[in-house]
């Protein structure tokens, strides 16, 4: 198909089409991997499945899992950090689907990028109070939207494992 079109198109346009064809294939492959049935499409998080339209849109982020393993990901402006993680099967949950009703997308924002994020709302702060392994650099991943300033953002997932079955367990607030 590319060859047929090539006769009448400029180099730039060919590349544009190539990029989008492969993007569609990538999206289809990813969609097939995720969905058990066609009807269970992500109602939210669809935007994060779209490829960046140009390099200008790209925002590179690195997710660090609880064992220190790094996952460099090519995101784009406007991506929700949590849904981007879901697309790439990084171990971040999103129980309440970004509606500020849980803390399962809790991340540590490493380095100076922390100061570039908009301040957490009262709602987010109230929830962070409940997050296990809270730190100074804790934020909720679903509240972080990528922009160019966040290029090179590194976020770390908290230790999910803890010994829940301690004898003499003290009641925690609930």
């Amino acid at each position, binding site marked *: 198909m590319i060859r047929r079109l090539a006769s009448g198109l400029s180099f730039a346009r060919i590349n544009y089409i190539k990029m989008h064809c492969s993007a569609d294939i990538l999206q289809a492959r990813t969609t097939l991997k995720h969905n*058990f*049935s066609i009807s*269970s499409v992500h*109602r939210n998080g669809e935007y994060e499945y779209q490829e960046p339209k140009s390099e200008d849109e790209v925002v590179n982020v690195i997710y660090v899992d609880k064992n220190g393993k790094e996952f460099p990901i090519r995101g784009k402006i406007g991506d929700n950090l949590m849904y981007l993680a879901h697309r790439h099967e990084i171990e971040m*949950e999103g*129980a*309440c*689907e970004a*509606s*500020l*009703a*849980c*803390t*399962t997308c*809790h991340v540590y924002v490493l380095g100076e990028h922390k100061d570039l994020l908009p301040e957490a709302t*009262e*709602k987010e*702060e*109230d*929830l*962070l*109070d*409940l*997050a*296990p392994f*809270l730190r100074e650099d804790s934020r909720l991943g679903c509240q972080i939207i990528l922009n160019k300033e966040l290029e090179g953002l590194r976020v770390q997932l908290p230790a*999910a*494992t*803890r*010994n*829940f*079955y301690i004898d003499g*367990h*003290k*009641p*925690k*607030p*609930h």
Partner: protein
Amino acid sequence: MRRASTLCSFAKGAPLRLLSTSSTRQGPQVCVVGAGPAGFYVTQHLVKTLPEANVDIYEKLPVPFGLVRFGVAPDHPEVKNVINTFTKTAQNPRVRFVGNVSLGKDLSLQELQRLYHAVILTYGAEHDKSLGIPGEDLGNILSARRFVGWYNGQPGDENLNPDLSTDTVAVLGQGNVALDVARVLLAPIDYLKSTDITAHSLEALSKSQVKRVMLIGRRGPVQAAFTIKELREMLKMEGCKSVFRQDDFKGVQEFLPSVARPRKRLTELLAQAALDPKAEWLEAWKTAERSFEPIFYRSPAAFLPSSSKAGTVGAVKLAVTELQGEMSETQGVKNTGAFEDVKCGLVLRSIGYKGLPADPDIPFDSKSGVVRNSKGRVEGLPGVYCGGWLGTGPVGVIVNTMGNAFELGRLIEGDIKDGTINATTAKPGYLEAAKILDNKGVQAVSFKDWEKIDQEEQNRGKAIDKPREKIVSVSEMLKVVAN
């Protein structure tokens, strides 16, 4: 149901596949008892990491989701979004939801152990602690858990009939469940009307005479168990003022600098509400007709009968307590010997949930209400595991249960992969369970059947501007399925 008949394979490292007959299934057969968050999250982990496993989730009720459906307050619908994740899990072809089947009644633990390689108990804590003080059997002393079940449509609680003709309610306990019931009692009826609160409770609440709700705890503000989001909701509740006893806050502000987050923000907000309320709150409180009254350092000692309504509670005798030792979040209290009586016409006891053994073979610690286990492996029963509140005790929100369930999933995955559980001998799983249930005349409910109930509830809700109208009787649920 796959009827593969592969030949024996003795290749090194390859799992031994026996010639399977139609009475067994390939791959590890796992059953989960209890279709709440713990059950769904452990299932999610196992189907992801064991591509050959089949997981059957048994649930006593015809409907899944446990406390997400029956515990989360009707005005907190976002918390219920997790149901979408659970639905995805249930729709996996290797997962089967089996509703209306009760462990101990329809299937025994021994039977499940015979049919499955692993049995995972996640049926939570469906009873609550009682105080064990005189007068506790007076009328209108109810468990907050049942009150929540009443407004959330838990089958069995619809006939609770709390008497709301009194103007004062005493809620004993200061956790989020206590705040939830206080909020439902004090909220304007319009606020509740468009939620999925049950019709019978909405009707009763619209006629409620309740004006004051006391939230009584035996320790101080620094030890309060509720969380900040729920406190904020109460402070801003329309038509409701928050009334504190300033004496309860002695020493609290001095303690603040040494408190770590998260306790710090909660204590700051409490102290502010009690000692220096925001101007906008005071303005709203001026015209409020209802009141929310947290009371600290009071421990219930006895219930006193009403002089006007025979056999019903009329007051609570409270022992005055004081903190022992240095102020800290985990401080204990002791009684001072003094007492205070508070008049009230309804008492809601919210001092903690409690689990019970569903089957006599389950080793249970009745003191803590927890199945005896080590890291999730049930004591003395290889291949039997427990998780969620049943394993850890009835404390924790969804993120805690999720973490626990994933950890349990990793443990079970490891046990299957390293041979601690011998999953190479084929087991029949649901093929056999279905026969047992059929012989007993038990009507098992599938996930598709639940979706019928779900659709019916949503349809009924649409007619009256609610997200759903919950069906509260099991027999009616089964009727909807049969149609």
